[in-house]
């Protein structure tokens, strides 16, 4: 049994390496406008994977993602003022994750006693507080923000490869977490908190674990946001940012990682087509939210994964 697992791991690794190479070659061939689209898609996917862990897996409805994205973006932004290399990026990202975890913990302790919609509003409040704090600090450049966050020695293609690898690692992290006893404990909180508690699960602990991992991924997404836009300001991290990420999770399916990837690409492509019509884009976002909720409340993929189709086939053959 152990052997078949390690063989599976090596195959998976090979597929990953090959797909990274293929994706980066393809990236080099497409026009710059679409390169930008795919970088944006990657950024969305990283953030949305984190939110999906919080909403889809642990069942806690957080509207605070924008705050964590902001922390990641500003950590890298501040380090980049003196060191805009890949090392500066790594340091900034690590710093962002540490600060995010600390803040997320402060948020989690009081708010995780709340349920459902109340939690959503409380996290929204926290996220706005983070934004207001950033707006009133000197080190973050106040309301005018930080500029010239260009990456030294890394071009768009380099950044794309980094982001694709980040996504793969994030998916691996989430899958390994969810398919462990700790992950099952987290899912049980989503299914029935009272029953989970009665089965010996420390529900607060697992809600917090999922929230910290999810928030950290938001910080990582934020880390890429600065170099992607060359400029960050507090206004970039308003409530709307949380909704952007939420749209992807809802569209793809709460609990489905492949859904999130597809949703992220779809939204980024839609944004590119509607670049010059931002109101129409927002109206479409709105319609997507309403229609998906009415017609397919669990999202396009539900909580299924693309790999499930393949799994079903092999099961049938047994």
């Amino acid at each position: 049994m152990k052997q078949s697992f390690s063989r599976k791991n090596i195959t998976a690794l090979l597929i990953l390496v090959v797909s990274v190479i293929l994706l980066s070659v393809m990236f080099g061939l497409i026009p710059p406008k679409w390169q930008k689209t795919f970088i944006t898609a990657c950024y969305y996917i990283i953030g949305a994977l984190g939110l999906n862990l919080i909403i889809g897996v642990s069942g806690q409805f957080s509207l605070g993602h924008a705050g964590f994205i902001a922390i990641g973006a500003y950590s890298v932004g501040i380090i980049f003022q003196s060191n805009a290399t890949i090392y500066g990026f790594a340091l900034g990202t690590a710093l962002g994750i540490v600060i995010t975890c600390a803040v997320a913990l402060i948020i989690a302790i009081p708010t995780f006693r709340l349920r459902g919609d109340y939690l959503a509003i409380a996290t929204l409040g926290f996220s706005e507080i983070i934004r207001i704090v950033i707006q009133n600090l000197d080190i973050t450049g106040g309301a005018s923000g930080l500029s010239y966050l260009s990456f030294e020695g890394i071009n768009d293609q380099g950044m794309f490869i980094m982001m694709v690898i980040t996504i793969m690692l994030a998916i691996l992290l989430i899958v390994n977490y969810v398919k462990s006893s700790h992950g099952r404990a987290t899912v049980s909180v989503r299914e029935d908190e009272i029953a989970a508690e009665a089965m010996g699960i420390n529900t607060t602990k697992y809600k917090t674990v999922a929230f910290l991992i999810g928030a950290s991924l938001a910080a990582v997404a934020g880390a890429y946001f600065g170099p992607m836009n060359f400029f960050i300001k507090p206004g970039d991290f308003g409530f709307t940012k949380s909704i952007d990420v939420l749209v992807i999770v809802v569209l793809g399916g709460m609990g489905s990682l492949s859904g999130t990837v597809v949703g992220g690409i779809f939204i980024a492509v839609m944004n590119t087509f509607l670049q010059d019509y931002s109101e129409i884009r927002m109206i479409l976002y709105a319609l997507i939210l309403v229609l998906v909720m009415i017609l397919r409340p669990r999202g396009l993929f539900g909580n299924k994964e693309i790999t499930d189709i393949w799994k079903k086939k092999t099961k049938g053959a047994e």
Partner: protein
Amino acid sequence: MVQFIQQLVNGLSIGSVFALVALGYTMVYGIIKLINFAHGDIYMLGAFIGYFSFKYIAGGYGGFILALVLAMGGCALIGMLIEKVAYKPLRNASRITALITAMGVSYFLEYVMVYFFGAERRTLTAPFENTVFHIGEITFTLSTMIIVVTTIILMLLLTYIVNCTKMGKAMRAVSTDPDAARLMGINVDHTISFTFALGSALAGAAGVLIGLHYNIVEPLMGMIPGLKAFIAAVFGGIGIIPGAMFGGLSIGVIQTFASGYISSLWQDAIVYGLLIIILVVKPAGLLGKNKKEKV
């Protein structure tokens, strides 16, 4: 002391607008357990109706009353329509599903307005001259007084409707137990529809009043006040009508004091902080009773 009273007067005036909006949140939450995220945008629509009415139909005191009636009627219709189209299919869905839908509706209203009228701020033509009164060293404006008086009248009217009419009785019955109410022959769908109409009418009136106060309307003006009105509803105890009135006035006063005595840059952060404290310490609100899920 003078500054204190002056701030209190300003706080009560803005607070009465919050209270009107908070009433809609609280009634809808009370009856279908939905945080109607789009409620702040109904208030924005009310402000726009007021703006157009002052500009193209009539000014003066008569014009003000007309704008109020048009905004309340228009918003009531829109509120009912939204409920029919977006929320009714989700009656039995989870609260989160309904909340996400409400956010979608909110976005929809905001950006449809941006699409048709542009995102820029518009200055409102005041329907009458905003005379300034002095009592001692404290300053009142005519609009402040009209806002407070209108709010009081509307609240009395609402209290009458909820407590003394058949429809009000039905509302209270449905919010206590929709299934039992249905068995008693109450038309639950009509009652919910009526609740949306009532809440939206109040938000529409609040929109016209805020137009008098700030003289500015824009499509995204409903987001932050909407959120604050929701906070007000939670503060007083969501689902409780006097709670929303009390919460609205409190949030208005707290915000004005925070801005006056601490810093206007931090006033919103203070209001959000307050929300979190209330949710954590007494989630049922100051006037509410705590309930626990039955096991």
